[in-house]
């Protein structure tokens, strides 16, 4: 038997940190600093390694989240990491402008860190950050692949304050890696590394309303400047960001309400959760009867809602040629009992106990969207990803056992 060599990191998640070492292969940006080599000559180590060979390689589950700037990625990330347990914090003692968030199970990296052109470079060439020419997809692919294979990497940091690329930071392989940004599904190689992908699709009306909300207080901004910025970026957005939604396993679409005729305030939202069928370890949420078409107004004798009420819709559909299930919520929750009532009527939401969705929404009642479909569907997608992660881990533990049986 050939001696196997395992690389073990000092990271907190020992399970996911093993891999077969490949000393001949040198990847750009890989670190040697924290690597401890175990030679598997002893029986004890050997057993550990033979297990590692099977279970550790590719144990990091990789999730992609795509959305434009200012469309709620950060909020979604906070909901997601909360569902996984433990708060996600920036790396301790590192660059204060790091874009990374780390919790016990999850590391979230921002794909802006793979900008190949800094702010000055983009200005000189006249390209936006949305343009693939401003991004280094080779490095993105190599590093995401390395982490998925259990190898730590030195990832660059794009500093959003200075617009410069700062010295890199060490990213150790977590149990769950989330890559969020403008282009997680743009490059085919990166896309193939994703175990699950989400696209946040914010309609133009809502995007405008959200950016007004975000920027109007900022000195120098006006309705005109906010509009000009959205319009100037739109051609690149349409060319490079929007097409990624066809690859997403789940799309959260945010639209203006239909409950109020000609509503132009943009306060009440209609949110669609579009879930691809046939994705491994992911079974779509449904309302009452899987695969039927259902229109449901929960407000009535049992539940009192305030104006303009709440409306749900569920149907099978096709989306860019894929079979999907679509769950839609229009309106907003005004009271706790409305949320509990709705949760108890949804099926396949992957909760671990009754009321978990409601509990998560309440825990973060101060996050934007906690009273409407954006918060509800973000929370549900978080629970679905937790479920997917647990299934992936279970399937990998099962594999070697089945192999020995055979």
């Amino acid at each position, binding site marked *: 038997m050939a001696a196997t060599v395992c690389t073990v990191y000092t990271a907190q998640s020992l399970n996911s940190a093993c891999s077969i070492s490949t000393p001949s292969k040198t990847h750009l940006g890989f670190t040697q600093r924290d690597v401890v080599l175990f030679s598997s000559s002893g029986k004890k180590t050997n057993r550990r390694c033979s297990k590692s060979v099977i279970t550790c390689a590719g144990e990091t589950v990789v999730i992609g989240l795509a959305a434009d*700037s*200012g469309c709620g990625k*950060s909020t979604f990330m906070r909901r997601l990491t909360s569902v996984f347990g433990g708060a996600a914090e920036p790396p301790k003692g590192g660059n204060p402008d790091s874009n990374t968030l780390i919790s016990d199970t999850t590391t979230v990296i921002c794909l802006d860190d793979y900008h190949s052109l800094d*702010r000055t470079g*983009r*200005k000189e*060439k*006249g*390209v*936006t*950050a*949305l343009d693939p020419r401003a991004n280094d997809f080779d490095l993105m692919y190599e590093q995401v692949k390395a982490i998925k294979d259990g190898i730590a990497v030195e990832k660059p940091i794009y500093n*959003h*304050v200075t*617009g410069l690329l700062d010295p890199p930071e060490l990213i150790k392989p977590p149990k769950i890696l989330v890559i969020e940004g403008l282009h997680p599904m743009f490059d085919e190689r990166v896309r193939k590394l994703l175990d699950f992908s989400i696209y946040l699709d914010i309609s133009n009306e809502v995007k405008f309303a*959200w*950016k007004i*909300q*975000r*920027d109007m*207080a*900022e*000195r*120098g*901004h006006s309705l005109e*400047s906010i509009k*000009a*910025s959205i319009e*100037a*970026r739109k*051609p*690149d957005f349409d060319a490079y960001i929007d097409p990624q939604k066809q690859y997403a396993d789940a799309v959260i679409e945010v639209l203006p309400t239909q409950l109020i005729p000609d509503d132009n305030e943009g*306060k009440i939202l209609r949110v669609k959760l579009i879930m691809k069928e046939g994705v491994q370890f992911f079974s779509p949420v449904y309302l009452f009867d899987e695969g039927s078409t259902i229109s449901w107004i929960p407000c009535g004798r049992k539940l009192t809602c305030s104006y303009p009420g709440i409306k749900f819709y569920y149907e099978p559909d096709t989306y860019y040629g894929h079979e999907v299930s679509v769950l839609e919520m229009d309106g*907003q*929750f*005004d*009271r*706790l*009992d409305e*949320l*509990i009532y709705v949760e108890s009527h949804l099926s396949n939401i992957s909760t671990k106990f009754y009321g978990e969705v409601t*509990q998560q*929404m*309440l*825990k973060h*009642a*101060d*996050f*934007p*969207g*906690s*009273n*409407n479909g*954006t*918060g509800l569907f973000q929370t549900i997608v978080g629970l679905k990803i937790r479920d997917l992660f647990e299934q992936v881990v279970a399937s990998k533990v099962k594999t070697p056992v089945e192999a020995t049986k055979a």
Partner: protein
Amino acid sequence: MATVSGLNIYTPRFLTKPAKEAPKAKPMIRLNNPWGRTHRFGNRRMQLRQVRAAPEGLSDKVEQSIKNAEEACAGDPASGECVAAWDEVEELSAAASHERDRKKGSDPLENYCKDNPETDECRTYDN
């Protein structure tokens, strides 16, 4: 159900406590509203969460970048220069917004109460 309806949305851990302190009045637990109506809460802790401008440096940069973009687009609104300039405005505005969020979370009382919601100074009352 009485327990659930009496809980304060900022301290969900009270779920496990008996509802003896819960107000008998019909609870109007408003889940968040993204349009910044939170200041209408009759909750004293919410008043700490007011929108602050981003730190001076970033605010200045946002303001300057808007001026630059307007200048860059004076000639040709479809030019790469113009588009890149507005993209910079978006990037800086997003950075300023993240900075504000980060500041919001740095309130020492908020941080203390996250870990010690049961202490006297962290109790909140609904009206």
